[in-house]
């Protein structure tokens, strides 16, 4: 390896560091700690996690596949709006949706108030489901995460060759039978990919679980770390959570590979939408409106209501300092990850060696790893580094520089780079793929030097993927909660942390403005996504 590739390799491994730290603790199990955890909390964490995985998995499958089928196959009033409206819940972080439903459905909320007024009953006289429960968490995650399944499955349904579906019908299979016997089996790998993505988010969720009081690994890790101050225990729990994640990653990789086999060369002919009338059109509308209403319209309205109710917050200088802080942090993290991604993607393009590719794959795993696990995996090496630095500095200069790595924004930026590098890496790589090696060669035969090729050919072509990557990372950083909670410097807040703190203090309405801010910025990438989908369907003549 040359010096350049060695550096690339080193940086890629560094990004994978937290993952390596946590994975290594698996090889070095602390049996006494594990035994204690096993007797106290682990069975509960595992059973809760399994219930969540199964229920959320089923829920997002039903919501995602049914909407994808209606939108890709039928013509009914409003399908065009719904086709992108169904993506809107992507802008809502799960914990914010959880706050809004709590505000609506709690004892003091408007729904129960209405029931009490209507039937003239008081608290305790009637039964009402408790949203702050395991079932409530399943509900919230389903309505927030189904778009992953919808997005991927819809693409699969639209790519399926119409011939397969039509030949099934000429062979005498009805519409419903064709769906179950042909369309569904063909789309199964795509559905599996979408569901595993949703389940990874489920495992990574901290905000909802903490607020609803559902004990799972993420909340357990946090409690072990802060409540008991047990770093080793937190590391061991993180390792256990990582096992769940790795299983999901393997399922996802496997189904993606199969998806390639199932993908057929689509003919130029786009599938004909079948028009729906009467109750069928009504049913399709209901199926598609339901998740949009539950996942976006209701929570967003509640946020708006709170923001109006607490309108004075918008005038506070501290709120805008907080917003500025968050944007500044997000932009900084976005620039770092995008530059890193650019560098790694070019390195891989130029020297596609096996070790480098493997290291870059490792560096790109961050998105699957729960933020809390990354934080835990990062804190111990950073703390070690700080202690060495303090010792060295005391010996050399006789002064204590403080916690330079673990106690400052550096730790946060490192964690964001680990978690969100894959987002920008994917975006940048797919942009880079459009610049064929022949294009470089042409420019060279036209007398262009390497630097001129970069400025005149590559950068203009990479402009929009780079911008997209910046925005995606910015939004992800703004939404991020657990890693920020663990790693933020003393007295440093982001919008997400403020919303979390207000909600934890049972001041839900005060959580409204920061939450609304996060959702508003989060809508930008959703709009970009829906526009990209629309352009694609225009190009394919749909």
């Amino acid at each position, binding site marked *: 390896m040359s010096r350049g590739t060695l550096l690339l390799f080193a940086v890629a491994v560094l990004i994978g560091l937290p993952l390596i730290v946590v994975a290594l603790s698996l090889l070095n199990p602390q049996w006494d700690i594990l035994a204690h955890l096993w007797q106290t909390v682990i069975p509960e964490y595992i059973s809760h996690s399994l219930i969540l995985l199964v229920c959320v998995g089923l829920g997002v499958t039903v919501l995602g596949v049914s909407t994808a089928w209606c939108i890709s196959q039928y013509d009914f009033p409003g399908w065009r709006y719904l086709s992108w409206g169904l993506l809107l819940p992507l802008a809502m972080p799960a914990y914010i949706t959880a706050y809004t439903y709590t505000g609506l459905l709690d004892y003091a909320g408007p729904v129960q108030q209405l029931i009490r007024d209507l039937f003239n009953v008081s608290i305790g006289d009637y039964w009402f489901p408790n949203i702050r429960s395991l079932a409530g968490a399943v509900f919230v995650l389903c309505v927030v995460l189904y778009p992953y399944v919808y997005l991927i499955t819809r693409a699969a349904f639209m790519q399926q060759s119409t011939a397969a579906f039509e030949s099934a019908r000429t062979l005498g299979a009805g519409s419903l039978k064709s769906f179950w016997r042909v369309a569904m089996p063909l789309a199964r790998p795509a559905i599996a990919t979408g569901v595993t993505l949703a389940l990874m988010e489920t495992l990574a969720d901290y905000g909802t679980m903490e607020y609803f009081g559902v004990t799972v690994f993420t909340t357990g890790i946090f409690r072990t770390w802060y409540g008991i101050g047990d770093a080793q225990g937190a590391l061991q729990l993180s390792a256990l959570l990582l096992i769940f994640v790795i299983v999901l990653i393997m399922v996802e990789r496997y189904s993606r590979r199969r998806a390639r086999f199932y993908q057929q060369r689509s003919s130029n002919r786009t599938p004909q939408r079948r028009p729906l009338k009467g109750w069928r059109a009504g049913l399709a509308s209901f199926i598609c409106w339901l998740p949009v209403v539950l996942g976006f319209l209701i929570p967003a309205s509640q946020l708006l209501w709170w923001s109006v109710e607490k309108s004075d917050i918008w005038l506070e200088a501290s709120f805008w300092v907080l917003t500025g802080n968050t944007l500044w942090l997000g932009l900084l993290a976005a620039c770092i990850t995008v530059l890193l991604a650019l560098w790694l993607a070019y390195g891989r393009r130029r020297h596609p060696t096996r070790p480098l590719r493997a290291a870059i794959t490792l560096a790109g795993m961050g998105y699957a790893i729960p933020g809390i696990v990354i934080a835990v995996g990062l804190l111990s090496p950073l703390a070690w580094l700080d202690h060495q630095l303090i010792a060295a500095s005391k010996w050399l200069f006789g002064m204590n520089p403080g916690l330079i790595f673990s106690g400052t924004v550096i730790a946060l930026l490192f964690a964001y780079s680990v978690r969100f590098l894959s987002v920008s890496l994917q975006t940048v790589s797919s942009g880079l793929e459009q610049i*064929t090696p*022949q294009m470089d*060669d042409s420019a*060279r*035969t036209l007398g*262009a*030097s390497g630097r001129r090729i970069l400025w005149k*050919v590559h950068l203009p072509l990479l402009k929009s993927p780079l911008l997209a990557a910046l925005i995606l990372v910015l939004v992800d950083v703004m939404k991020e909660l657990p890693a920020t909670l663990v790693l933020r410097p003393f007295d440093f807040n982001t919008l997400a942390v403020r919303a979390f703190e207000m909600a934890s203090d049972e001041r839900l309405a005060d959580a409204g403005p920061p939450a609304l801010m996060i959702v508003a910025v989060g809508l930008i990438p959703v709009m970009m996504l829906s526009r990209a989908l629309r352009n694609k369907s225009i190009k394919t003549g749909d």
Partner: protein
Amino acid sequence: MSTLLNLESVSIELSGNRIVDQLSLSLAPGDIGCLLGPSGCGKTTLLRAIAGFNPVSSGKISLHNKVVSSNSMQLATEKRNIGMMFQDFSLFPHLTVEQNIRFGIEDWSQSEQEQRVKELLLRIDLNGYQKRYPHELSGGQQQRIALARALAPRPQLMLLDEPFSSLDAELREILAHDVRHLLKEENITALLVTHDQQEAFAMADKAGVMYSGQLLQWETPYELYHEPTHELVADFIGRGVLLQGEVKEHKLHSAFGVIEHDDIKNHPNMQVNFLVRPDDIVLNKNSAMKAIVVGKGFRGSHYLYTLELSDTSRVLAVGPSHQPLNDGATVGIDVDFDHLVVFDASLCELPD
């Protein structure tokens, strides 16, 4: 005679495999050369070495008697003043037609640039397309823009890598003529690589067949067709079959009987394979020599028949379109060789 491009026993090795093996050829200024050959024969690798993308492991490549590639040095591509056209055109998608063409001449003065763009667009019949983007153009138009872009800096040598392969057959032939015309007008020397011999015949002043890294013949297309010096060339170029025969006392003995021909009047006695093209066989119902029709293909203006001779060897023959012969029919044939091409049978190395 002066040469513009000269290759002296050039060998190229890529990751340990010898792709091009001691190949020599030269092109005179203004000539269009063509390397034919099946895919994987090394022709594209050779072209990329001339452009300076691949290093040579031995031998020399020179332009205008100046060495640009040898095992000890390699002049950077951008300093060779070579134009190259790629199979996929590789137009820059973010630049307009005009900006694409200007890319290689941006160090010229503004008015010179404008004039050159205008002149080229007129030549390729796309004047008025200046502001269009590549994706708004058809395949044939993109191809011509790519050519104009490569021609703009007036390269001393133009390299074309399968330039027509992504176009349909009809367009291919028209464009091949257009491109030849344009290159001649600009008086640019060019080397073309293709697996399609029609393209080669339409374009080239000189052509050769490449086979596993070696150049088998380097002559005019006419000579390549009528006087192949190698069985692989005979097999690759044009339709035809090789029949077995024997040269005895300067006469060819074969299923066609005994043939005397100027081309073999000094040939030593030996077992030979000789080349029979469809145009060497003339259908003549009065002829004493008979053959049986065992297959036919309609070609519009004519039929291409497969005929079986008395010794069961088969040849191809052309017959008029309007009075087809049926399978199994017996026909009379005459044999009339313009050129009689024979190969030593003991050296035969035809692939199966």
